[in-house]
């Protein structure tokens, strides 16, 4: 559905994208995660032809992103916290305005989304709260049943209740389309993402399916029969290695029972107990971010 190859983008001296490549499979829910300034929004803007990359190429639905025409855009839903909609129009008026641009606009679906999100059709967009504006963005992005839905930080600044309403409106359609979502709200993403890509300083560090990611990350606590110390030359896949009392702790980013067993075996019988717990996306993200900082 989306393929980006070697994208480079500079803002002044700051390199926002540094040779970024990624592939979003059709039908997937693809999450872009990364710290602030990692390049998530820039990537999405390049894919949507809002920004032009200095180097590299991206295709969206088989079309060069720089040549996205109304035909492709009629199949792409886009919701962003930065979206500027005409403040002095009423919610209903803006929906009326958008409808004719989309051949596949489903008025019944629009009605049910508007009702579910509790959008006040008579209120001016400029008078909506941030949460309401995000809901409005979603209500403008779903009724034409897009093949591709792009969500750029959709949960930013939303309270948990609004997040739930947002997700409840989104999920019934999620199976019918490809979703590209960038967010800091990893707990929300975890429930829906089938693929995850981790960006750092304009580069893609990895992209893989959620199941593979969950399988390879483990939070490991090794209890020793003596005072633990962080090994001077720990394996590269061990992140954030630290010791506390007789417990050695680290995040194994390439977990397999055999590899870990072999590693423990090399500790000369000092290992009393090994506890390798599966990690949530938030923990993985935190571990990766800390290891990058460290």
């Amino acid at each position, binding site marked *: 559905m989306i393929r980006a190859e070697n994208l480079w983008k500079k803002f002044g001296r700051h390199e926002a994208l540094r040779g970024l490549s990624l592939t979003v499979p059709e039908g997937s829910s693809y999450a872009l995660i990364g710290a602030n300034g990692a390049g998530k929004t820039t990537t999405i803007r390049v894919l949507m032809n809002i920004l032009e990359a200095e180097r590299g190429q991206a295709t969206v639905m088989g079309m060069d992103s720089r040549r996205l025409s109304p035909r492709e855009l009629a199949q792409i839903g886009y919701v962003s916290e930065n979206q*500027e909609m005409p403040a002095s129009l009423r919610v209903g008026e803006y929906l009326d305005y958008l409808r004719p*641009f989309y051949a596949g606009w489903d008025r019944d679906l629009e009605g049910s989304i508007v009702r579910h999100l509790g959008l006040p059709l008579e209120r001016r967009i400029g008078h909506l709260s941030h949460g309401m504006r995000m809901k409005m963005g979603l209500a403008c992005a779903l009724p034409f049943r897009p093949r591709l839905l792009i969500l750029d930080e959709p949960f930013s600044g939303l309270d948990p209740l609004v997040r739930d309403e947002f997700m409840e409106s989104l999920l019934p359609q999620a199976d019918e389309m490809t979703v590209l979502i960038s967010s800091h709200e990893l707990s929300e993403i975890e429930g829906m993402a089938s693929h995850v890509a981790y960006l750092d300083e304009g580069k893609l560090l990895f992209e893989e399916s959620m199941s593979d990611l969950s399988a390879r990350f483990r939070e490991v606590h090794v209890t020793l029969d003596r005072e633990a110390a962080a090994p001077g030359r720990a394996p590269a896949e061990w992140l954030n290695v630290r010791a506390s009392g007789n417990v050695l702790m680290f995040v194994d980013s390439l977990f397999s029972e055999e590899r870990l067993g072999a590693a423990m075996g090399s500790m000369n019988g000092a290992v009393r107990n090994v506890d390798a717990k599966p990690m949530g996306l938030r923990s993985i993200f935190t571990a990766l971010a800390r290891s990058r900082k460290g």
Partner: protein
Amino acid sequence: MVWHILKKDWKLMGRMAAGAALLYAMRVVFSLRVEPRMGRMTPAFDLQYVLSTLSLIAEVLVVALVVQKDAIAGLRQDWLVRPVKRTDLLLSKLAFVVLLVQGPVLVLDVVEGLAAGIGPGAVLAASVWRSVWMLGTLLLPVFAFATLTRNLMEAVGAGLAVTLVFAMFQSATMNTGASLLASSGIGWILSSMQTAWLLAGVAAILGLQYYRRKVAAARWVGGLAIAAAVAMQFVPWQQAFAIQAKLSSKPSAANGIQVRFDKGVRNMRMYGAEDDRITVAIPFVFEGVGLGERLIEDRVSARVIEANGKVTSLNREWEGRSIGFSGNFEAGLLMTKDLVGRLKRGPARLELELYLTLAQAGEEARMAAEGSALIDGIGRCAAWKDFVASEVEVNCRVPGKAPCAYWELEDTTGRAFVRRFSCTSDYAPRLMGVGNGAIRWSHQGLPFEFGPKIGDPLAEAADEQKLKGAQVMVQVYRAVDHFTRQVVIPDFLLNDAR
């Protein structure tokens, strides 16, 4: 989708557009309330200018805002991610400007002209032309400029910066040859070239912005277009005048006109010592100017070549004077005191190039000195006797610009006792005279001597009898030929100048 987008913009901007139109409508109302008898210095007259300026500012703001409702520059606009055809977007914005910003102005101009009693053909032509001119020289450049900025603050800031740089440049070049062309009768050639160039820049910017969203490149194009338009001020006078000559309606009409330096006509005079310079008036005689014809001096360029080979170019004191019926004419040349001193001590060669225009009179028209009439070629005029100012004042509502005209005040026997020739030396096509409306005011005073007052040397004595039943005669003069004549004075000496 053009109308669909237009309707959306009307919902967003309709009130502002209506406000701008309302300001203009108020200007029209005040303009129509100006009593011709009251002359120009009435509150209604001044107010219409204020309202005209305000409506112009409002129009500019509306244009900038309607463009920025779907801004091209910036990354957050919702339309960027919608299936909106760029052509539809551009056309809808242009339609808004033409139909909803300039459209009401056009209608109001027509209403004003018709209500003033001017013929519908002349009113429609002047109104359409003014609207086209306003679109080409103001609203479309503002439109293009607005696409380069993300919001009104940015647009206003950038606009002020450009205006400031432009004003500084104008100030720096005020006393150079550049300003002569702009303020002369052929200045319209310069402004037409600048407008054409600006429109080419507008087209390039809109193409780059709406079809490729190349904001940085479009900003460069905008800057270069403005810089090039400003630099056009330095188009040489000779080339511009040659274009004007090619456009003459009767290109050979002035073939028989000769000019010669005639020291015998009157002595050369020196006057107006200003700073380090003195004006020296050089007398000429023109021959071959027929009845019903007048010459207008557009420019005199001169250079002095002294015995030692030193060449000095001289400026004229002013441009665009009408040369009298007698054919006598003085060209006032500005010289430094040093040069005057040298020319008093020894002769030098003086070469002059005279740029001239021949104007021919049209039909005579008459109206009562206290009445009103529709005068062909001018417009709706009203005359009244102002005994306080000792003049017959003629105020005309003119579609387009006021033409050159010869005015007489005639007594009941048809004898003229006041004569005036008024000409602003502007050879632009008549409709190109764009003012604060399509209909402009033109004022002509015909002073007479009445009672014990310090007289105007050009006015004749008049009494109640003469003024009773007096008529105003007017003849419109049209420029028919633009030509040059060279005069060389081999031994120019100022030893007998006074």
